[in-house]
């Protein structure tokens, strides 16, 4: 019996856990007691994160699709075939006809290799990953404001803060261990303020819960800042010494007096004023936000408004004081840091920056493209046209991307599609070749959690027969495409990444044993950074950016009278590839549901468990009703984990103009009860295998 210390593969909290192994079988997990994030706790996903690893459904050999059916193949055959086809496409249509999707579920090393593969081997900047769909607005928005888009503080600091302002984050369900620290802070007397249209669990502990209308965050924040400016609560010293562009910003904010803010957001003016006063006057105020802020056509605007607010009150640059975007996936922070984005190399060095490009060119011995590539959403739009082939590693865009049927159509138009995954996902079904990869328990590497903590992952068991770690697959493929990648182990990749990435300069595997290091960590003698923007912002002066309110892209109307907002639930994770193969999690929530307010339900004659059709201009799904006052009137909520009722068939693909993030959080829908067809029930039972 061995216990291997590693990191949870689900969310961005990055909890430490032990994987228990006996005779190469995982027999359980347990939490790391001293870990600064989870302190001996885990959430239900963490506690059950071992079950899918040795699930019989794992992909165990490469598959090549010939005449529409998958045939088992050897690794050599599959890799040769993949290399050959990618080269063919590259020759015929140029490197920019190939698109890469890297993965926030894979390690830093793998993301680094993927971006190297894309840029140095294929020769394109068309690389992106699912951060596009969750926090691209953070990366873009905060880069402009501070110069760096990550949590400014550490999770461990939350306990001792005085004010917690949580906007657009269902923390206890989505980042349970951060939620735990928040409850601890509340127990110690901190004031919790939650802004969320839904009554989430964390909102029950809030002193003030602002239930603003979906998509009116800018108006809410501008209203608060209006109060702060008018009541003289601005930290003028800070504004003068450390920021720029205050005057332009002030002009816009002055257009949002309380009565206007109240009209737009639906939040009583007194509440906005109270919140503004509390937030501005207390010290040690932490602001948290998550997808409720970012997944809008105004995602970048929302993020910048948050940045404006913290600068206005000088709530940044100190311990327990800052702006904290909560990143979703276990390694979405790392995937961004490692440059799995179309416009930057690792450490957010711009591809358009000649000096940076030179550095990478000389390190890699290859000519690199200088024009930023296509984003994930743009790749699918161009599929079949300028994009002819795609290489998707550990992502399932068919379920996760907005207007999913459009993505499926797009993928079908590709000449060649490589999918590298651990299970046969819906995207893999459409692939020309499927390469079986391994899970977190079967490989080494590092994950970067949402507080910038780079932590080491340790191999606990041998890979299930036939599967290969992603980094191996990439280097093998690269070799076959005429570019040698010689790495004996993952720490060699990290060494290369550290060399080329200033903020990861001192992050080397052997230094990560004690709960890792938090970047920026520029050198081998640097002990990491627990809170950022001390004394100066990453980019020097912080920038105020004037933001006007823009309503959501799709207003409700007579045909589609409800606002649909989407999100996650604590028992599931994203498209469910892992958690829905975990019996405990699947048993808890086996079916998709739509949360609807009792008042709306009554007017439509709906009871809990009724089958409902939810339709938008783009499509229709059928789900079970769940009548609850968690969602306010006029708004319905659907989690997006369920492939049989994929909510992204109906969400709005309207994009934020700069970050290209889709508006998952608001679209207009109609709701109607349906009578189940007689044969539907049978299908419904047989679906649930292996619980």
């Amino acid at each position: 019996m061995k216990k291997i210390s590693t990191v949870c593969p689900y969310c961005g909290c990055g909890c430490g856990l032990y994987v228990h192994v006996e005779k190469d079988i995982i027999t359980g997990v347990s939490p790391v007691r001293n870990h600064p994030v989870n302190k001996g706790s885990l959430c239900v996903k963490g506690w059950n994160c071992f079950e899918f690893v040795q699930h019989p459904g794992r992909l165990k050999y490469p598959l090549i699709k010939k005449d529409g059916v998958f045939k088992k193949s050897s690794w050599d055959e599959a890799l040769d075939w993949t290399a050959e086809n990618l080269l063919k496409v590259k020759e015929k249509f140029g490197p920019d006809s190939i698109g890469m999707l890297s993965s926030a579920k894979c390690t830093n090393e793998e993301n680094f290799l993927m971006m190297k593969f894309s840029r140095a081997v294929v020769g394109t900047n068309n690389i992106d990953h699912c951060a596009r769909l969750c926090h691209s607005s953070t990366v873009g928005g905060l880069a402009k404001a501070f110069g760096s888009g990550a949590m400014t503080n550490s999770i461990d600091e939350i306990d001792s803060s005085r004010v917690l302002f949580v906007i657009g984050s269902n923390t206890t369900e989505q980042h349970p261990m951060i939620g735990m620290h928040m409850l601890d802070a509340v127990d110690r007397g901190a004031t919790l303020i939650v802004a969320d249209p839904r009554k989430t669990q964390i909102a029950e502990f809030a002193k003030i819960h602002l239930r603003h209308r979906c998509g009116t965050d800018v108006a809410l924040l501008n209203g608060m800042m209006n109060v702060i400016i008018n009541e003289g609560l601005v930290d003028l010293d800070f504004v003068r010494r450390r920021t720029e562009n205050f005057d332009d910003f002030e002009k816009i904010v002055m257009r949002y007096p309380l009565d206007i803010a109240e009209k737009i957001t639906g939040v009583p003016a007194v509440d906005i004023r109270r919140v503004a006063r509390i937030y501005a006057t207390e010290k040690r105020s932490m602001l948290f936000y998550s997808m409720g802020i970012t997944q809008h056509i105004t995602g970048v605007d929302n993020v910048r408004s948050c940045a404006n607010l913290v600068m206005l009150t000088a709530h940044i640059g100190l311990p327990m004081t800052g702006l904290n975007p909560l990143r979703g996936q276990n390694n979405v922070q790392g995937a961004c840091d490692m440059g799995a984005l179309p416009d930057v190399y690792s450490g957010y060095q711009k591809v358009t920056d000649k000096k940076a490009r030179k550095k990478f060119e000389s390190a890699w011995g290859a000519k690199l493209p200088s024009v930023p590539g296509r984003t994930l959403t743009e790749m699918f739009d161009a599929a079949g046209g300028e994009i002819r082939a795609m290489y998707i590693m550990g992502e399932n865009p068919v379920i996760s991307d907005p207007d999913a049927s459009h993505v499926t159509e797009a993928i079908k138009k590709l000449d060649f599609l490589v999918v590298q995954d651990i299970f046969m996902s819906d995207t893999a079904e459409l692939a020309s070749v499927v390469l079986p990869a391994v899970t977190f328990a079967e490989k080494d590497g590092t994950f970067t959690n949402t507080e910038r903590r780079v932590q080491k992952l340790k191999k606990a068991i041998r890979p299930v027969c036939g599967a290969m770690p992603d980094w191996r697959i990439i280097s093998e493929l690269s070799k076959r495409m005429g570019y040698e990648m010689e790495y004996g182990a993952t720490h060699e990749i990290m060494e290369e990444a550290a060399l080329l990435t200033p903020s990861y300069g001192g992050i080397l595997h052997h230094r990560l044993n004690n709960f890792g290091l938090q970047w920026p960590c520029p050198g081998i003698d640097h002990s990491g950074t627990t809170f950022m923007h001390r004394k100066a912002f990453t980019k020097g002066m912080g920038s105020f950016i004037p933001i006007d309110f823009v309503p959501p892209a799709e207003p409700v109307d007579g045909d589609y009278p409800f606002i649909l907002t989407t999100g996650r639930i604590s028992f599931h994770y994203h498209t469910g590839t892992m958690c829905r193969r975990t019996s405990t999690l699947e048993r808890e929530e086996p079916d998709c549901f739509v949360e609807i307010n009792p008042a709306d339900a009554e007017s439509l004659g709906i009871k809990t468990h009724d089958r409902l059709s939810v339709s938008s201009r783009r499509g229709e799904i059928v789900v079970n009703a769940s009548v609850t006052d968690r969602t306010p009137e006029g708004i319905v909520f659907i989690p997006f984990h369920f492939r049989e009722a994929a909510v992204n068939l109906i969400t709005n693909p309207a994009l934020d103009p700069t970050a290209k993030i889709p508006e998952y959080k608001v679209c207009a829908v109609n709701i109607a009860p349906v009578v189940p067809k007689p044969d539907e029930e049978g299908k419904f039972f047989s679906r649930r295998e292996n619980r």
Partner: protein
Amino acid sequence: MKNKNKKGLYLPVDAKINDVIDLTPDVKLYKLRKPQSFFYSPGQFVMASIWGAGEVPISITSTSEIHQDIELCIRKAGFVTSALHRLNPGDSIGIRGPLGNRFPFEDAYGKDVLFIAGGIGIAPLRSLINLVIEKRKNFGKIALIYGSKTPTEVLFMPETQNWKENGIDLTLTIDVECKEWECSFGLVTEHINRQSISFESGYAFICGPHVMINAAMHDLSLLGMPAENIITTIEAHMKCGVGKCGHCYSDGRYVCTDGPVFSYAEIREFGMASP
């Protein structure tokens, strides 16, 4: 109840399916060859298992004194029961049991007996009804109220006529009025006070959906039946059937080993949760 399966508490034994009878579109009756030394009484159940699908608790609906085979009456309700429904004569079902306690029918010797069944609830009661008919002279008046949602859902229709001929005062009822039906209408509870049995001294055995059970128990006690004489079975999620897995636990009682048969008195005492 002893652990008879020497090989292990959770190891099912194979029982060959001798016959399958479609009772309604979603209920089938399985006749299984009885394994050696399998002795059971009315009210007990087995864990029916299919390797690769799972195990579910199913009441034994046959009567050991009368039937050669073990009979199980299974409604398609979910994953495992759907898998069971795909089996044919000649296949086998793994069974563990008999498990649980039994109906305390000896207590009712010399007394009137009222059976109340709703839907699939007739399955466990059928075992007892047939036994009571077998020992007809030991009991006083016997009545059965059996309710279903629609006429197509009535189980064991021919057999109920047989019971009637054997002197059971039979009330067949369906929830909502419709043309093809010539017996009674309305919920079972609407028929209780029309029964000619003695409520003060008689016994009632009730099986069916929770709501029905609760209403019937309540009504009977209002009609003067002592709580100890009102006997029912409780349904609960079960995984092991032998008091280990904890799924069926509720307020200090394991339904699988302390039950599934309980009296109204016990249910009230332990405040057992009923949804």
